[in-house]
């Protein structure tokens, strides 16, 4: 099925040069050497082609053949993606294990989507219907709760001439026939799409619904909108992966695509072993039933790491096209950038900053621009939100990947080593982080909770930045030198930091906070502040406020009050009223 298009002339790591046909296309998928390793053409010059190989090239010889396929690097799309775990070029890792044992050998070729498994398919079109690209032809239940909407390839359109009756079909069985111009085309549930080409949509919509993650520092303080893009940069040990895992577990997206790009093997194993046992609070089904995993760990071939990001985003777009909200985690985009750098170095391209190629910014932009809240071709609406981890060398945010990423995201969650050292998790620094979605999602909060979230959130941020200023003074002269009103600010911000911002991902009650719980906690802390401030202004010493038993109650509320018992916050508020009331009475004079 594939012809020889060249002979290898040069090999260095994942980069191979060959001489041969002038008809090979740029970015065409090729098979390299006798083992037919997967590769992609990344450069052409006369009859010379440069190929990056997605597998280990040790043992490959010059003079070995290269075979063309005539197709660009593509992924298979269809029912069966959910719950899969793939490598960077969409090879199913469980099948590789079955065939080759515990270690990944070269030259493994497997269908990405099972050809045997049957899906109950129900057609949604009838003979004579005019259908355009992206149209929903029918549905198959991919899991008990997830409806897989089988769509016409975006590039096709025509008149339906035949539809399969409802029944069980494999992804390669015909489910419809289509008259396109003069020819008739058979449609199956399976389609292929080139990974480097964004799937088309009708138009972008404003992103003004927050992606709720259950993480208080994110939802309440630095929200990302559905269809938005966020970056989490941080030095090692600051909790990038834990944060990514928390979002993957609790985000209110219908589909999660998790890309482990050049990261640890044990982390992927953790996800694999944990997600099937965790229950999605919204559907009551295991979290794995909404998850697609792409695992290209740090010791797997580096070129496939480069491809893994595109494989993931293409799968995410496919589910978006069905009308779903998809959240994509990429951990870590720095490893992806390093893969670009390594290949670029082997091509002896002129480096720009720190050895990275000059096109780094362009590639990052292309990737993050594939996020969006859109009107799909078939009239549904869906979104892809991207959360990209960044691993800056030495934790220095001035390095190229962090800096370029900042240009293309609108939400920046800066992780902080010193917070992590004090075991303040998530170690997201509230003074360095920002979200440009605040105004956009304000209306949603008002509608959902009936409360003025943005004003409260800004008030809390104001107190926190006040705290930062005051702590500079405290460092010089000690807290006793501050007036009571300023020390009241410090009392409140301690509640904000320990009661709100800190969140324990491993504790069942605290791991996920509902929107209602979050806003109620925020409200309570601010209420505490207003009452306390009023009393302190009357001359009450600050230590009386500090010693109120309710302080401890508020700090512990995150792990003692569950999402279902929001009314218990009313009791805490009563305790504030009662204890503050007593003080108030004492200092009324």
């Amino acid at each position, binding site marked *: 099925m594939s012809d020889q298009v060249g002979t290898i002339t040069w090999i260095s790591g994942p980069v191979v040069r060959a001489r041969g046909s002038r008809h090979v296309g740029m970015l065409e998928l090729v098979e390299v050497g006798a083992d037919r390793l997967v590769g992609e053409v990344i450069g052409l010059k006369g009859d010379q082609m440069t190929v990056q190989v997605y597998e280990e*090239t*040790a043992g490959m*010889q010059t003079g070995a053949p290269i075979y063309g396929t005539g197709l660009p690097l593509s992924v298979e799309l269809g029912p069966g993606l959910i719950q899969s775990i793939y490598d960077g070029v969409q090879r199913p890792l469980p099948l590789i294990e079955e065939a080759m*044992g515990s270690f990944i050998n070269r030259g493994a070729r497997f269908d990405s989507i099972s050809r045997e498994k049957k899906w109950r398919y129900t057609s949604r079109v009838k003979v004579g219907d005019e259908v355009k690209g992206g149209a929903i032809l029918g549905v198959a239940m991919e899991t008990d709760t997830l409806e897989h909407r089988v769509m016409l390839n975006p590039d096709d359109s025509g008149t339906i001439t035949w539809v399969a009756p409802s029944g069980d079909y494999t992804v390669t069985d015909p489910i419809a026939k289509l008259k396109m111009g003069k020819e008739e085309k058979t449609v199956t549930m399976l389609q292929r799409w080139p990974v480097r080409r964004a799937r088309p949509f009708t138009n972008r919509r404003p992103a003004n619904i927050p992606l709720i993650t259950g993480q208080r520092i994110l939802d309440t303080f630095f929200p990302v909108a559905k269809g938005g893009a966020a970056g989490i940069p941080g030095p090692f040990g600051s909790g990038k992966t834990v944060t990514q895992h928390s979002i993957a577990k609790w985000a209110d997206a219908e589909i999660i695509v998790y890309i482990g790009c*050049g990261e640890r*093997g*044990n982390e992927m194993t953790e996800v694999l072993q944990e997600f099937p046992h965790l229950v999605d609070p919204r559907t009551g089904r295991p979290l794995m039933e909404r998850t697609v995993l792409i695992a290209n*760990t740090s010791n797997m071939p580096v070129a496939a790491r480069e491809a893994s990001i595109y494989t993931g985003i293409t799968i995410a777009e496919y589910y978006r096209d069905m009308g779903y909200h998809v959240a994509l985690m990429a951990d870590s985009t720095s490893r992806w950038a390093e893969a670009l750098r390594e290949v670029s170095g082997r091509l002896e391209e002129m480096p720009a900053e720190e050895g990275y190629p000059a096109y780094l910014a362009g590639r990052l932009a292309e990737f993050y621009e594939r996020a969006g809240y859109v009107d799909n071709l078939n009239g549904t609406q869906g979104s892809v939100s991207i959360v990209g981890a960044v691993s800056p060398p030495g934790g220095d945010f001035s390095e190229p990947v962090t800096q370029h990423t900042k240009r293309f995201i609108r939400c920046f969650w800066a992780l902080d080593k010193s917070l992590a050292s004090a075991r303040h998790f998530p170690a997201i620094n509230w003074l360095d982080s920002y979200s440009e979605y605040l105004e956009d999602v304000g209306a949603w909060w008002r509608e959902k909770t009936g409360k003025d979230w943005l004003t409260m959130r800004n008030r809390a941020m104001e107190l926190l930045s006040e705290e930062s200023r005051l702590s500079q003074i405290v*460092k010089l002269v000690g807290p006793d030198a501050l007036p009571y009103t300023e020390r009241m600010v410090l009392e409140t911000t301690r509640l904000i930091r320990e009661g709100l911002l800190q969140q324990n991902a*491993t504790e069942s009650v605290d791991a996920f906070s509902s929107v209602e719980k979050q806003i109620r906690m925020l409200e309570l802390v601010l209420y505490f502040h207003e009452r306390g401030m009023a009393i302190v202004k009357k001359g009450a010493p600050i230590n009386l406020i500090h010693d109120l038993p309710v302080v401890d109650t508020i700090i512990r509320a995150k792990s003692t009050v569950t999402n279902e018992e929001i009314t218990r916050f009313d009791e805490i508020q009563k305790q504030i009223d009662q204890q503050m009331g007593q003080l108030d009475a004492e200092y009324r004079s």
Partner: protein
Amino acid sequence: MSEVTVQGGQEVVGVGRIEGPILVVEGGANVSYDEVVEIQDSRGQIRRGRVLEVGEGFAVVQAFAGSTGLSIDGTRVRFLGTTLHIPVAEEMLGRIFDGLGSPIDGGPEPLTDRYADVNGQPINPTARIYPRDYIQTGISTIDGVNTLLRGQKLPLFSGAGMPHDQLAAQIVRQATLGKLAGAPPTEGEEFAIVFAAMGVKNDVADYFRRSFTESGALTRVAMFLNLADDPPVERIVTPRAALTLAEYLAYEREMHVLVVLTDMTNYGEALRQISNVRGEVPSRKGYPGYLYSDLASMYERTGRIRTSKGSITQIPILTMPNDDITHPMPDLTGYITEGQIVLGRELNFAGIYPPVAVLPSLSRLMKDGIGKNRTRDDHPRWGAQLYAAYARTQDVRALASVIGEEELSDVDQKYLKFGRAFEREFVNQSFTENRTIERTLEIGWKLLSMLPKKELTRVTLDEIAIYYKGDDASN
């Protein structure tokens, strides 16, 4: 090991260019990328090398022992047609090998027909078992707050002149499978130890050898030594050879293997040297752009797989140049490994052993190996509380250095006392002291009891009721 590879292979007489340890060999046909070569100099001496790049009619070869004495016309290069393999056998425990895996203890070549590729192969993430069994090292700063699990890779970040070797030796000597706090001591399952030295001084290698002898562990240790005066290029292979044996022992012989690699900084320098000679585009501090992937190809050879009871636990040791944790070697290592144990210069000056700087240290897998049914229910929160309190101590110390201790509030004074006691009683222990997990927890609670109850927001009220021993007066 030469007997596997000698048959076959073409020979080329004369080389085109020699630059440092790199030779450009012209005229070979069908040379494979990454294959092993034997290089014979004009006096008939043989050294080994490896193909780094192949082109039409030429190959770039790296000579492990360097190029001293090689000439353009008098050098013969024989391509062996296979990647670098070493013999692997259980009887290699108790033996000493050079950096390429040949015996240097005067004994015979290991008797085996199992040869394994030193590059190994990536473990399929679906074939792994997530590590959950903790290793009791008897050292409070590790067991208590940075717990090591079987199948974890946890490096020691140190600096010149600090006792990282002693600490590593103590871990090796004391490591046993962890038990529930309070469980009666049992004969712990012993680890097989694979030790790789890259560019360390003879004394260091000797220190480990003596330490293994004294603890009676020598018969279950395999040592791979590339010392400071050995060819630097060999260092690229040494850790890989060690890990290849470790993989065989863990995944085929079902043993629990502890791998100690020292000093990874020297490994990085050897890699940089070769990259430099080849004229590659450097990234940071002259290190090649692929340093991360290269380190990962070794560190990721740690873990457990479903088809074997065995495990590989890695403790790489790095001396941070100028104690700089942002240097590419510790930095990239930290991004790959599952935490790090950092040694602190100040603690070392203060005479505290082991001088583990608790705040920058971390064990990522700790959360999955401790707590209920593993150590004790309160352990995770207890650990977080100790961290938080000790972090607060640092702030208080900074404040005290400005305004003086007398000016501190009562609570801050207590933190100051807590901090001192924490370093002297919790961190500090003797080289021979092997603390049980319950002892470590007990010391921690004793220290926490120096603080007012109100400050302990990370532990639960129930736990305070059970374990808090202070009088909590005047908070």
